[in-house]
């Protein structure tokens, strides 16, 4: 026992020494998600500390849901554990309104704020002030297997309709060989199946709320959306679709189990990378489908870096964000990992760069997808909210996840589409009343 206590004391003393050594420097704690691009940023952060020897960096890399839970708790209570946080477009408007985020208007000359894609920049700004700096941006599009499409005797147009997608999915499905015509998100969550379904619903003329914040799940447009989605996945989708999120579908597509996959444009660089993907040579891209109503079923999302107001090292945090989301970072990644692995979708200059366009066969379709996405006017009929695959109100995360669970239960065969829509309508109405919208 005494040895134990001694060694514990020893450990404490060592930590104390380590702390006092670090005290002469500024230490920043960065919280981020465990996506490939962020893990790369962590790996390259040595370049940052070489440029700024006075700053040391601690990383907290967590799975998306855990990260959101930790960051939200911290920022809502002003805990001050993090100096740089990774957040989506969804949180920015109301977190900025609460005064929880620092303004990022002065990231310096080199940062070149005017190079940011307009749709991305406006999504991260409130009243013209930038509150989060985009690390990568994405829309969604159709990724498909050119070999299977050819074998099916079909030709994918650049702007497919949902009807064509169904036809192609039917033709490509070959269950005996483990090939499923279409892979879509089914895993419940506001950022998983509801991101896809909400964007899809937009192209079917459906919307979450009317101008008076009345939930709209009792409309025919939603019934059409959900029925079509169920029809696609139950007939031509992989088994267990109700548990497949982005990552699961990525693994399925890379191992050759999917004919088509409609998902985030950032996946394009993963499925065309021969190191990870068995089908890298035979992937084609097209815009997300539509129904001829003037809206496509694609979304717009950015993972971005922001500084909580509770940070005790905002200056160092600003330096880091300017580095990680500045134009020079793109060049750095290009040098170390090649142009195809550069975080996409944030800067116009990237899409003007011939080296990038050549290395990334998906670049053009990514940019086109992002250009047709309009978060300010996401739906066919007018709505009181901003956001394509989400509704930018604080209540949405809770509502979206619960509705996502209802729809996933329908996909898993536990309830019918009618019941699911009824439950969704009831739940959303209840929540909106409680939140004072109705």
């Amino acid at each position, binding site marked *: 026992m005494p040895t134990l206590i001694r060694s*514990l004391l020893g450990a404490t003393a060592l930590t104390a020494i380590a702390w006092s050594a670090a005290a002469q420097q500024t230490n920043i704690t960065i919280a981020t998600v465990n996506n490939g691009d962020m893990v790369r940023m962590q*790996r390259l952060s040595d370049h940052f500390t070489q440029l700024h020897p006075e700053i040391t960096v601690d990383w907290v890399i*967590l*799975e998306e849901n855990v990260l959101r839970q930790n960051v939200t*708790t911290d920022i809502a209570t002003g*805990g001050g554990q993090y100096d740089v946080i990774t957040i989506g477009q969804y949180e920015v408007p109301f977190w900025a309104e609460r005064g929880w985020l620092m303004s990022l208007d002065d990231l310096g000359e080199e940062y070149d704020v005017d190079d940011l894609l307009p749709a991305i920049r406006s999504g991260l700004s409130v009243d013209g002030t930038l509150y989060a700096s985009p690390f990568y941006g994405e829309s969604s599009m159709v990724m498909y297997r050119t070999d299977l499409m050819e074998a099916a005797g079909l030709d994918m147009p650049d702007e497919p309709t949902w009807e064509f997608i169904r036809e192609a999915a039917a033709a490509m499905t070959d269950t005996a060989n483990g090939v499923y015509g279409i892979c879509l998100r089914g895993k419940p969550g506001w950022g998983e199946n509801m991101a896809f379904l909400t964007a899809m619903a937009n192209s079917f003329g459906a919307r979450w709320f009317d101008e008076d914040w009345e939930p709209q799940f009792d409309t025919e447009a939603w019934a059409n959306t959900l029925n079509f989605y169920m029809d696609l996945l139950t007939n031509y989708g992989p088994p267990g679709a109700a548990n497949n999120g982005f990552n699961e579908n*990525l693994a399925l597509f890379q191992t050759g189990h999917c004919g088509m996959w409609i998902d985030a444009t950032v996946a394009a660089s993963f499925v065309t990378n021969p190191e990870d993907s068995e089908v890298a040579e035979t992937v084609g891209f097209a815009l997300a489908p539509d129904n001829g109503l003037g809206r496509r079923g694609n979304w717009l999302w950015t993972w971005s870096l922001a500084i909580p107001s509770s940070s005790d090292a905002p200056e160092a945090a600003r330096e880091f964000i300017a580095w990680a989301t500045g134009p020079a970072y793109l060049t750095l990644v290009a040098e170390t990992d090649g142009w195809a692995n550069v975080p996409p979708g944030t800067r116009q200059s990237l899409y003007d760069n011939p080296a990038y366009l050549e290395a990334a066969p998906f670049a053009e379709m990514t940019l086109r997808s992002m250009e047709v996405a309009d978060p300010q006017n996401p739906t066919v009929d007018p709505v009181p909210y901003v956001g394509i695959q989400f509704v930018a109100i604080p209540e949405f995360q809770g509502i979206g996840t619960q509705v996502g669970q209802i729809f996933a239960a329908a996909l898993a065969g536990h309830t019918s589409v009618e019941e699911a829509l009824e439950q969704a309508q009831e739940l959303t109405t209840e929540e909106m009343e409680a939140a004072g919208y109705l």
Partner: protein
Amino acid sequence: MARAISTPRKVTLTAVAWIIGLLIFFPILWTILTSFKPEAQAIADPPMFLSFDWTLENYAVVQERSDYLRYLMNSVFLSIGSTVLGLLIAVPAAWSMAFVPARRTKDVLMWMLSTKMMPPVGVLVPIYLIFRDTGLLDSRVGLTVVLMLINLPIIIWMLYTYFREIPGEILEAARMDGAGLKEEILYVLTPMAVPGIASTILLNIILAWNEAFWTLNLTAANAAPLTAFIASYSSPEGLFYAKLSAASIMAIAPILIMGWFSQKQLVRGLTFGAVK
């Protein structure tokens, strides 16, 4: 009550026991195997059992991504620290409950257990606010105290049941010899309760090591233990089975090995007074 049994029966029982044992252990074994496979072979159909290209690459990749040692040291610090702290408080408490029972001793014990019934997430915000105001967020000391408090009722209960089995006459004899309270606990009681205390220590270390709510929610970079380490791998990305397996094994290996080596001690004392 192990008794001599006939050989055919022994063979059958041995076979059954081994099959069940291997089945229960299988998920861990499969994870260990997968962690040594190249990613592509980790999802091979049909599954590959031993005839794959053994590699350490997954461990290297995981180590490169996360500083395993730092998480490991935090886990060790937290589980041992909270256990030591817990014993310091629990031993006297259990002693007094066992040897100077009051009318309400049982009720006190049950009340202590009931403090474990609050769902942690229900008190997350209050605790977070308290930690913020006391500067304990992301500190090992704060987390050690929380883990100690969470497991304290269990430790007290375990120790109480061991102490109660010690015959009172021995204590009286010691008192006759002029032993004070301190001597009584240190030289008479503790040695007799060593198996029980050892078992308590082990169980507490295991529980603290595996606690995944507070360790995840109250830490950021400094105090994060292995539960946070695994949370950066728990969501799959691309081909991930082998790397996920490697990270999983890295998170559980230390406690698994400790558990195996000390299983005799753990088993001997794990009775909670259930044995008369």
